[in-house]
């Protein structure tokens, strides 16, 4: 049986790991290479690095960073942020990343998902969706692009299903409402998306306590849980998380 994955997320800005609340008010959380190596030794199942600057200048920096990470980390890691072309994906995979996540570019050009899946295999392509509850229709979640700054008319559940049809191998679903609050994952949207797709869904945004992880997995149906604040600032070790989940009957790679 597949172990439920515990995935620390490292948001990288100007070569530092940062973490905010609702994507704003960023706090420094350390050096990405050191933190990555520490988490992988500590028992993380995967790592996600998101280049949240995602400018042309930061592209070169992120490639150099990924190369350093790859020399020290022997677990899979995903890289995202500002990816627009299949060539950029190729470059990141050649630098040592296992997977890439696409977000804004996939919304603008959904064909990117298909092109990347055909060339690198579905399992390499993570569709990252940043979403928040729509102000007009509280039953809907709208997809936001450009690091959450630009809301669209696209429904998050429909976009996840469309992403699967286009060839995405995995959905990284971030609730902007829950992000950084440490008040728990958004179970409603997580459940809606896990029920709408057959590919793995990584729940993201809101983890603050051990039971939040359990809720996202059992109530939300998530295949993996992503967290940042809880590991960067709350001093829960990955082992503690896994032992807690194992104790409640969740299969983990301990």
């Amino acid at each position, binding site marked *: 049986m597949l172990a439920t994955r515990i995935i620390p997320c490292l948001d990288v800005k100007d070569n530092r790991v940062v973490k905010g609340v609702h994507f704003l008010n960023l706090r420094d959380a350390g050096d990405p290479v050191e933190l990555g190596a520490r988490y992988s030794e500590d028992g993380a199942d995967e790592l996600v690095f998101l280049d949240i600057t995602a400018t042309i200048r930061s592209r070169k920096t992120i490639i150099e960073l990924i190369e350093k990470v790859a*020399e020290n980390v022997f677990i899979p890691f995903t890289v995202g942020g500002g990816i627009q072309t299949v060539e950029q994906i190729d470059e990141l995979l050649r630098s040592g*990343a*296992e997977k890439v996540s696409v977000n804004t570019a996939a919304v603008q050009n959904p064909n990117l998902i298909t092109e990347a899946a055909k060339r*690198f295999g579905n399992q390499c392509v993570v569709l990252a969706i940043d979403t928040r509850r729509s102000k007009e229709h509280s039953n809907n979640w709208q997809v936001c692009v450009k690091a959450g700054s630009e809301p669209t008319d696209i429904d998050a559940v429909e976009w996840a299903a469309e992403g699967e049809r286009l060839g995405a191998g*995995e959905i990284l679903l971030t609730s902007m409402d829950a992000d950084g609050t440490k008040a728990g994952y958004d179970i409603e949207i997580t459940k809606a998306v896990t029920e709408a797709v057959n590919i793995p869904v990584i729940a993201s945004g809101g983890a603050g306590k051990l039971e939040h992880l359990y809720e996202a997995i059992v109530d939300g149906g998530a295949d*993996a849980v992503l967290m940042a604040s809880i590991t960067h600032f709350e001093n829960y070790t990955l082992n503690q998380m896994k032992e807690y989940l194992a104790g409640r009957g969740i299969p983990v790679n301990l």
Partner: protein
Amino acid sequence: MIVVIDYNVGNVKSVCNAFQHIGCDVKLSCEPKEIEDAAGLVLPGVAAFGYAVSALGTTAELIKKVALSGKPLLGICVGFQMLFEKSSEYGEHNGLGLVSGNVIPIPSEQTVPHMGWNQVKMPEAMNLFAGLGSEKHFYFAHSFYAEVNDSEAKVAFTDYGFDLPASVQKANIYGTQFHPEKSGQVGLKVLKNFAQLCKGTNS
């Protein structure tokens, strides 16, 4: 010297990093001379099968020749799948045909891709798993799997709603559907075991 075949697909570097980390003499190359002189070959692969096969091009024949001469060959993920005869990923494509069997989609009753850490039951007789005990988690990421149909091959399985072949060994031909280079300490041990087998060939 272990040569990791460089054929313009993703993630070849991770394999080199892992071999370097365990103190192996390793080189990323697609030079025929270096491939022929290698103590062992590693065929990595993060790509769709058809793309990987066409990217490999004429190097495929050379790999076959070197493998059939008795040097250890390790296929990883799509590199593992390419050891077999055929795949139906995005159209039908021929593999190296070193191990009998076909690469087919994971049944849709299961979550596809099969991605993450799954437990592999490791038969004692398989060299790659020496010293690892009987069951360990390894990292998988794939949508197709190899249905092994070769009486000469030893097979290790993982449970994914059915017995999914996780590794094969046929004489000097080795393959892992999982990524040893991404499976933490346990995966590094598999690579160490392969490196040990390469030393045995004395080249």
